[in-house]
């Protein structure tokens, strides 16, 4: 079968990769040219991704923009791309964040600028591939391929302990996903297909499902990352350059959540239901315990990294609470709310964490330290910056009116329908999240100027204002008017929720 409705998704995957090659070839020796080329390429890619939003029939909620070509006939693997509302939301988030990363690194990166920009563009293409792949093998190739540019990014442009951090990042995530590969091979040997839709329809015994569930869990839980396999994240975040942290937090972590939606939920629904308690428990631990851990951090980046783990706990909670709801209480509406809430939380966290890491980058460029203790009273010297920081902090606490509120509120509502105690645990994050975020704001932004270095700080320049302004726009629009986003994903989420009901054993 050789069909393609459009070549939009292929363009979105291969344009960044070709653009990356162009940047490194044409701008390898000329930093200025590399920056401009990368910016132009990334903006063009964002423009190319707009038709996904406008051309998608959200009411149907099906996989659209499909492309289907035979890839490897011998093992029945296909180059099969497609996107539903969920994929499109994440793809557009990716194309939106990448130009901001390019702009953010404008003055911050001086060494091997061409390679830096190229690595991010290639990474963008691979991440879009993950969100667009409808063939398990193709998904896996993109999923693992992402590690290579990220490994290089952290390793070359990272902080003092970058080698340790990047090896830990690579080996940790490689470890998880290779077990997933064994699971996929097992599935292929029985179902003789890599197609995700056909795998979802394939019958599996309870035992098989349980093993596959844990194989997938290992792969995706490390990516999310869930407690207790989150330890690579603080290291990677702390050592990564600003752009690396932004992409890691804003998009790469989402791939773990996305994997649960595409693999665990539809392919092994019975096992997912059976072990939903486990995921829910781990998520609650992530939300509460990691929240406390965040409270005591001395390093800004580490604090935000832990806050990411806590926020991603909401995503896994929302996804798996749906099972408990569907199977036990039959409350479709609440289950739907849980999955929808997870998705909104993912997009929102993409903006908020990306913005927070960009803010840290802005400070780091001026002071060359990430230690909270070295700052204090920044508002006096950088009022505009302080305004942005406070806005993003509010979003990080989940204040109504910002994007952070919408997803968390939906997930808490859904958990309430299942068990008020789970809801109470989840809602606890509103307190602890506010505590560590506001405490961070207090120590860095408010108060009197603590030292000479802070006194000499210059406020953000127009380029930085543009980057932060665009992030802020995303945070506010989603917070005040989330309807376009929820409408985009509405029918697709319903499809996912309907699939949860299928008993496969």
């Amino acid at each position, binding site marked *: 079968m050789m069909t393609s409705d459009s070549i939009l998704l292929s363009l979105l995957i291969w344009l960044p990769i070709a653009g990356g090659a162009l940047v*490194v070839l044409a701008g390898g020796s000329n930093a200025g040219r590399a920056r401009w080329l990368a910016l132009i390429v990334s903006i063009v890619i964002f423009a190319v991704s707009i038709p996904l939003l406008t051309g998608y029939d959200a009411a149907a909620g099906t996989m659209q923009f499909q492309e289907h070509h035979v890839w490897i006939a011998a093992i029945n693997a296909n180059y099969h791309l497609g996107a539903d509302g969920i994929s499109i939301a994440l793809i557009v988030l990716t194309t939106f964040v990448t130009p901001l990363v390019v702009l953010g690194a404008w003055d911050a990166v001086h060494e091997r600028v061409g390679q830096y920009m190229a690595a991010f563009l290639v990474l963008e293409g691979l991440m879009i591939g993950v969100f667009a792949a409808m063939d398990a093998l193709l998904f896996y*190739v993109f999923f693992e391929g992402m590690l290579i540019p990220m490994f290089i990014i952290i390793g070359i442009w990272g902080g003092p302990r970058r080698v340790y951090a990047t090896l830990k990042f*690579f080996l940790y995530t490689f470890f998880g996903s290779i077990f997933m590969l064994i699971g996929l091979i097992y599935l292929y040997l029985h179902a003789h297909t890599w197609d995700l839709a056909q795998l979802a329809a394939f019958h599996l015994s309870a035992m098989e499902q349980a093993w596959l569930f844990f194989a997938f869990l290992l792969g995706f839980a490390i990516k999310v990352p869930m407690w207790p396999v989150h330890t690579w994240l603080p290291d990677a975040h702390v050592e990564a350059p600003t752009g690396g942290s932004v992409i890691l937090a804003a998009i790469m972590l989402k791939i773990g959540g996305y994997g649960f939606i595409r693999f665990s939920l539809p392919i092994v629904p019975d096992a997912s239901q059976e072990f939903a308690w486990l995921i829910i428990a781990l998520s609650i631990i992530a939300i509460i315990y990691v929240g406390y851990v965040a409270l005591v951090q001395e390093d800004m980046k580490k604090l935000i990294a832990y806050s990411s783990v806590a926020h991603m706990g909401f995503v896994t909670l929302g996804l798996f609470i749906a099972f408990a709801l569907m199977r036990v209480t039959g409350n479709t509406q609440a289950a739907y709310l849980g999955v929808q809430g997870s998705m909104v939380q993912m997009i929102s966290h993409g903006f908020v964490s990306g913005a927070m890491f960009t803010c840290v980058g802005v400070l780091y460029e001026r002071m060359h330290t990430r230690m909270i203790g070295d700052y204090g009273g920044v508002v006096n010297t950088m009022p505009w910056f302080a305004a942005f920081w406070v806005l993003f902090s509010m979003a990080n606490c989940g204040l109504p009116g910002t994007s952070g509120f919408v997803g968390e509120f939906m997930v808490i509502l859904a958990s309430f329908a299942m068990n008020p105690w789970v809801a109470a645990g989840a809602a606890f994050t509103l307190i602890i999240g506010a505590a560590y975020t506001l405490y961070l704001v207090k120590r860095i932004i408010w108060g009197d100027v603590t030292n000479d270095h802070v006194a000499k700080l210059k406020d953000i320049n127009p380029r930085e204002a543009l980057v932060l302004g665009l992030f802020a726009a995303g945070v506010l629009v989603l917070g005040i008017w989330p309807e376009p986003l929820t409408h985009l994903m509405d029918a697709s989420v319903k499809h996912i929720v309907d699939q949860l009901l299928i008993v496969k054993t």
Partner: protein
Amino acid sequence: MNFNLHDLALLAPEDFLLGAACAILFIDLFLKQTQRAVTHWLAIAALLGTLAIVLCAPGQVQTAFNGAYIHDTVATVLKTFILGLVAVVFVFSRRYLDERKLFIGEFYTLMLFSTLGMLLLVSAGNLVMVYLGLELFALSSYALVAIHRDSGVASEAAMKYFVLGALASGLLLYGLSMIYGATGTLDLAQIRAVGGVGVNGLAQHPTLFAFGLVFVVVGIAFKFGAAPFHMWLPDVYEGSPTAVTTFIATAPKLAAFGMAYRLLESGLGTLAPHWSQMLAALAALSLVIGNLVAIAQTNIKRMLAYSTISHMGFLLLGLLNATPAGYAAAMFYAICYAIMTAAAFGVILLLARAGFEAEMIDDFKGLNQRNPWYAFIMLLAMFSLAGVPPLFGFFAKLLVLKSAIDAGFLWLAIIAIVMAIVGCFYYLRVVKVMYFDKPADTSALELPRDLPLRWVLSINGLALLVLGVLWGPLIGWCYRAFGLPG
């Protein structure tokens, strides 16, 4: 038995290569050292000519000399890559040899005869032909390892290689004689036919037959360099001139696969349940020993030697399935392994200068700053060896893992992936040294103006990326070679 010219026609590639090798041996006598390039280009032309003959041969299965020589697609695929890779090795090694006063005719003629042995080996249809091909290959390569006469390490490596190689040949020959004794025939197809009848599916002398199998498996394991028969490999890799190492590390692995396939499947296919267990044990040991010991290496040639041992473990995962899909996976793995290893050694050869071997991992420090392009090629080779998609090496691993799981060896697949993670560590260390460390000398690297080497190496490196995306035709060819729809 009667002589038939048709038989010789079927052997056209071997005939041509033999003639060319003899001619080059003769022509080289009359060349001055300054004209040695003539030998170089003639040797490459001989290989490419043979390759053309191989590719033009008709597709159907044919035999010659009463079944002693088999022409089939398996042989065609293996010969194509053996010839191609040896030609690549010639291109890679010329300057290296020249700088070490090793640019001599013997290198070329020995390589060509060795290649001829490999061609016969992968086409062997009876036990004598297997042994003949193997010895022609092995004797030439012992001499090649020792070609640097003044080097103590090289002599030691050659001695070790020769003694252990002779031992392995002896074991193999002993096994072959037992099989002959048990079945009364040297012909592989007949051995298979006879082996299928009798008690428990064995021949009249099941014990003798089974003992023969054990010795044959040992001989094969030695040629692959699978643990615990790997002892020669690190020393030979480290001690040989890098040009010879590149040769030993690439094409012979394809020939070893051909030998294993002919002996185990064509001849002893009825014993598959037995030998697949033996191969499983060899695979597990190779994976563990190869990967764990590689971590401790500081010499990149030695590291790649242990990496080879682990890769042979992966290759055996495909072979032990004993189905056409398993053989196709193993053959694909052998091809893939040879191509990526050629790229890695190509970079070492490129960086080596007179008096500088570039064989320590630290010699690659900061290569990205000094020459980003060849650092990138090495990066591709390392990630491919580590088995990270979208590079070629991943798909080879995928297929052998699939065939191991298919054969019911899930435990072995788990060992393999755990060891793949361990393997990642030492491949990544090379990337780390090239990309993350600061070079001692930050000036741009002076690379020799050896354009054939640079071009072929670049193509070889990029092939790892291109074949990683478009590996369909190659795996299709491998599948069709074993009669599967591809």
